[in-house]
């Protein structure tokens, strides 16, 4: 992802390419941050910190060939830091609470994730994704909003692809449950309304 620069390269490119990366990815990074932490102002700060950290990395003489995964990596780390600041339970603790070991989902394939996703309404999913635990929200957003592949996600979150698949599957399942719960609530409300005397 990042290599030492060729001394013969025109150094003007560092600046130009960095600002071009800002222009190209600022919206996507902001969107991701905003959906993960549900705080617009804080999301802006995190995006700024992301670019500042990347610039610092560039200043140290590293030549970043592909900014996108690098930016997402830094952003993701900052978001995790943000969660830690607000003392949310750690990912491991959360997984343990669910009584799941990730190796148990090794058999889950991409096709099962796809078939599960096909059963969910994307519009409704958008309204409830914010209430998902971050471990699921993270992979769901990276895959379905940012368009990253399982391999990229696994590199990004430093987990195996299987773990990514498990989280995706679980996340989608959880998402569907939330949607169904919401729909059930709405139906119940309508039923109550319809029973009320006019």
């Amino acid at each position, binding site marked *: 992802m990042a290599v030492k620069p060729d001394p013969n390269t025109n150094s003007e490119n560092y600046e130009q390419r960095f600002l071009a990366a*800002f222009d190209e990815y600022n*919206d996507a990074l*902001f969107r991701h941050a905003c959906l993960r932490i549900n705080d617009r102002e804080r999301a*802006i700060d995190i995006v700024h910190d992301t670019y500042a950290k990347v610039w610092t990395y560039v200043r140290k003489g590293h030549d970043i060939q592909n900014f996108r995964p690098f930016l997402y990596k830094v952003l993701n780390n900052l978001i995790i830091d943000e969660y830690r600041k607000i003392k949310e339970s750690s990912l491991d603790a959360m997984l343990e609470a669910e009584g799941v070991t990730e190796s148990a989902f090794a058999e889950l394939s991409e096709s099962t994730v796809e078939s599960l996703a096909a059963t969910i*309404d994307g519009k409704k*999913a958008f309204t409830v994704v914010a209430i998902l635990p971050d471990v699921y929200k993270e992979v769901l957003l990276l895959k379905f*909003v940012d368009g990253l592949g399982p391999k990229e996600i696994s590199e990004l979150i430093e987990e195996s692809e299987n773990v990514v698949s498990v989280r995706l599957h679980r996340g989608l399942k959880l998402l569907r449950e939330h949607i169904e719960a919401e729909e059930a609530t709405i139906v119940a409300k309508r039923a109550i309304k319809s029973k009320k005397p006019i």
Partner: protein
Amino acid sequence: MKRFSEQLKKQSDSIRLRASERADLRERLVSYMEYHPLPAELQTKKLIAKQAIHTLLPTSFVVWRFNTKLFKTIVPTCVVMVLIAVPALAHQAAPGDILYPVKVGFNEEVIGTLAFSPYAKIEWETERLERRIAEARLLASEGKLTTEVEADVTAAIIEQSQKTKDKIAELRETDADDAAIAEIAFASMLSVQNEVLEKDADNVTEASTTPVGRTLAGVVAAESSAAEASQAASAPSYERLMARLEAETTLAYELFASVRAAATEAELADVTRRLEDVGRKIVEASTLMSNFETASATQVSIENQSTATTRAVATDEVISDNEALVNRANATALLRTAMADVRKLISFMTNIDVRDTITVDELVPVTLTSDERAAAVRLELSQLQQTLATLDTFDETLAPGTFSLAKRGLVDIITQLETIDLSTSLANAETLLAQATAMAQNALKMTEDMSVRAASGSADSLPELGETSTTTVDATATTPNVSN
């Protein structure tokens, strides 16, 4: 899944940075980069320059991303448009045009700024006033001088005139001579424009529906009179006037050389004659001034001599102080006239609309030379002699005593004129001639009246001399002294 992914992504796309947020974020980032620059080995001068451009630009301009190539093309084009094309187009603008404010508020102000000396600034303000009047005439000729426009144009002329007068007053505080000379030029310009407007008014026929407004003409006439009175009251020094006149005549000759190819022979002859007249006035003024200087030098030498006897003898030989001062005043007056004439000639040669409206003779009448004046005196004298011969044929018994007195007076004057030396007493001869001409006209009038009365058989007393004429001359008065 595709549908789920598309729907979720579509919904998520609604979450975006606002333009202002993005601009702020970029600015923060650029500032961060500026405070944490690349190491020296990675920096280039060009990079630093680019950073500076981004950081110097105001936030509102950084909202969208600059295309630097386009920027580099558009900015010079805009600069060329604003600084060259628009003022060039505005140069021909008339009141009411979109670019007219650019002409008055930018072009002319810039030119005014380029005039460094106070005199040059006044010259420019005078020219601006001339332009305003010319624009008014242009509008009138095109039928655009409505009452409202005329009011605006007149206000602009008054304002410009006041501005020029203020600048002259300002200059008078530091350099009275230059201010007085500037006033002459200002008055000359107004005189020319007044003549032109009067001629316009004369040319107005019933067919012409758009004469130059009376208000405008009235204002220019009033300004001209005031400027003329003001310049007459000022007294520039002979030396400064001569120096300025040399510059103006040089300019006039240069202009004359440049218009020579386009002018007709008659026009060339007319302008040549006026320039020669100006030259003669300058020579005459120089002669008078040298007389004054000689007189002054002699006076100083006399005062340096100690004996009263010597002083008494010498005083008779020199021109008196008063006469010397008169010479100086006359020399200055001649130069003032020459200066006014040159300015009018320059206006005539540089302004096509002035040339098209009035002749040079109307603007700068010919100044006769001494020989021409002497010839004119001789011609009028011979006419007077013929008139006298006619009066001799009249029966004096029919006339009262006043007729005889008038005739005798006329004879005396003619006798004096016949003996007068025109080379030395030309001015006196002209004065005498004027009186004699008036007397002859009155006498002729009396003879006509007496003939009418004789024919009608009336024996009533004839009117006294002068009663029948608007020109009255005391025939019994002592004839003027023609001595030098």
